[in-house]
């Protein structure tokens, strides 16, 4: 039997304190800046994982925060602020799923950072990850959102269901379908197949 070790849960994002939210609601500019800095990386990460290398990522990030700031009055603290913000990210990304995005193109051949170092392993690893990311980006949007939120972003199935306003059963189905599709695509690609094997590509 293969040994399967538990994956440490991604630690929850820092909870935006109530006082910070209250100050933001009161229009405190410094608090708005604090909230922005606190969650900027998270917002960009989710958008990027949902949309890939979207050329308007900064615009979309801006849109998310503006919607967030304007809707703060409706945040009642029933969910973690991060979960609430994720929902805004997903809504924003869903409006852009139809956009055509150019895949990243490597312009130059990279070489070793240090003389004498063999660049191939890290190049292969990078290329593997890039292609794996492309497979996730090519998933149908509904599957992609469920998979990204649950598997990559670390939301529980219940949280993902809440973010998507769908049942947990449906989210579970979508995650399963996404997993199958990714695994199938990885299996089809001889260069990626080792990723499914123990200690591959590490």
């Amino acid at each position, binding site marked *: *039997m*293969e040994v*399967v*070790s*538990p*994956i440490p*849960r*991604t630690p929850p994002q820092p909870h935006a304190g109530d006082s910070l939210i209250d100050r933001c609601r009161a229009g405190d*500019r410094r608090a*708005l*800046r604090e909230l*922005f*800095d606190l969650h*900027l990386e998270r917002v*960009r990460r989710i958008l*990027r994982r949902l949309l890939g*290398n979207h*050329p*308007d*990522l*900064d*615009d*979309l*990030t*801006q*849109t998310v925060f*503006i*919607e967030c700031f304007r809707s703060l009055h409706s945040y009642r603290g029933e969910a973690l602020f991060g979960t609430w913000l994720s929902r805004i990210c997903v809504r924003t990304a869903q409006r852009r799923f139809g*956009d*055509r*995005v*150019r*895949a*990243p*193109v490597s*312009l*130059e*051949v990279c*070489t070793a950072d240090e003389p004498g170092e063999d660049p191939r392993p890290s190049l292969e690893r*990078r290329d*593997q*990850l890039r292609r*794996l*990311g*492309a497979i*996730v980006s*090519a998933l149908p949007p509904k599957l992609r959102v469920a998979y990204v939120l*649950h*598997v*990559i972003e*670390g939301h*529980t*199935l219940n949280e993902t269901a809440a973010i998507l306003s769908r049942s947990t059963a449906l989210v*579970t189905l979508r*995650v*399963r379908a996404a*997993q199958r599709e990714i*695994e199938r695509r*990885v299996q089809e690609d001889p260069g990626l197949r080792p990723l*499914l094997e123990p200690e591959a590509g590490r």
Partner: protein
Amino acid sequence: MRCRRVEGRAVALLREELDAVETLAVNAHLEVCAACRVRLARAGRLQAHLEALPLPALGAARRDRLRERTLAALDDGAAAGPSFPWRRLGAAAGVAALVAGLVLWLWPRPSPPPPGPAAPGPAAVAAPGPVAPSPGLRPAPVHAACAEGVWTTPCRRVTGATGVRADLPAAADLWLEPDSVVAFERAAAATRFHLERGRILARVHPRPAGSSFVVAAGDMVVTVRGTLFAVARREQRVQVDLVEGTVTVTVPTGDRALAAGQRAVFAAGQLEVEPLAAARAAADLARLPAAPASTAAPTPPAGSPERYYRRAEAARRAGRSAEAAQAYRGIRRLFPGTAAAANASLALGDLYLGPLHRPAAALHSYDEALAGRPAGAVHEEALAGRARALRALARPDQTRAAAAAYLRHHPAGIHSQEMRALAR
């Protein structure tokens, strides 16, 4: 419990998120189902690899700009400001620029050549606090795309041990040193480069009055009009090497004129000027020698396809899609059977498919481009455009066939990933 229920809960189980009852049920199933054990292990590995996917870091300066832009937009009541017309045109603009740019590169200047000799004009190097956007330019979006490794027509990211000569339609020759990251954006009469890191060497051709050429590096902005210079950035240290022409360096403590053969270094709020090493200047000069006068771009003759291209491009950049389409149609009508007509058909197809929202007309245009160019880049773009048009027309079978046709002809083409998705 059945396999399908276990599969969807694999990651939740690995993260120990399931409640006790579910955990027991899943474990009981895993005891007897080897296939699920394998799937579970694979799901965990994939998850680990995906979490390792590198995400570009956001520099402090860019984060500050984005934050202030967001707060300003909040005050303005706008969710997002307007983007460049060419960005809104999206892929249509990109492809059209790619195709028409080959022709237009010979005539890149929007107005007649400036009077006087080709001697470089004055330049200003300013180092204010935050980067002040040039009129009509919004720095963030293109910058973001480049920083994240997206290569669009006007935007490149360069890494590696060898430099690369950039062929950008900016009335300038550029050389990017290894491991440089630079983004490019352009408005009507303004050209702007964002140097994220590394070194950019530029020979800027004399530019018409009213136009600007800017290199932004960290908190320094270099505005140029016709000169050979280089800007290098390593973290907060910015260095300007002036090989030809003159520049004025502006820092918070005052202005300083630089002459050819001088180097200005701005670090820790201090500006220092020193002689530029002769070897450095010679190397830069050898890298981007002055172009012979005979290569100066002539004005395209009236009635030529190039003249129509200029008109179409100008209209397209300004967001006047209908006018651009009319100019492209003019090329097709007046120069049937030529390469220019095929290029125009392709650009027209992109306009129809994009901003004009006429997929049927786009399909027709792509077919015409294909008829005119049975191979090559236009052929590849037209095949891809055809598949997209069919998708927009909701014809799934034909979309798959068109995507398969693309993959047959261009299995490793730039759109192959997208076409594979469409072919399924």
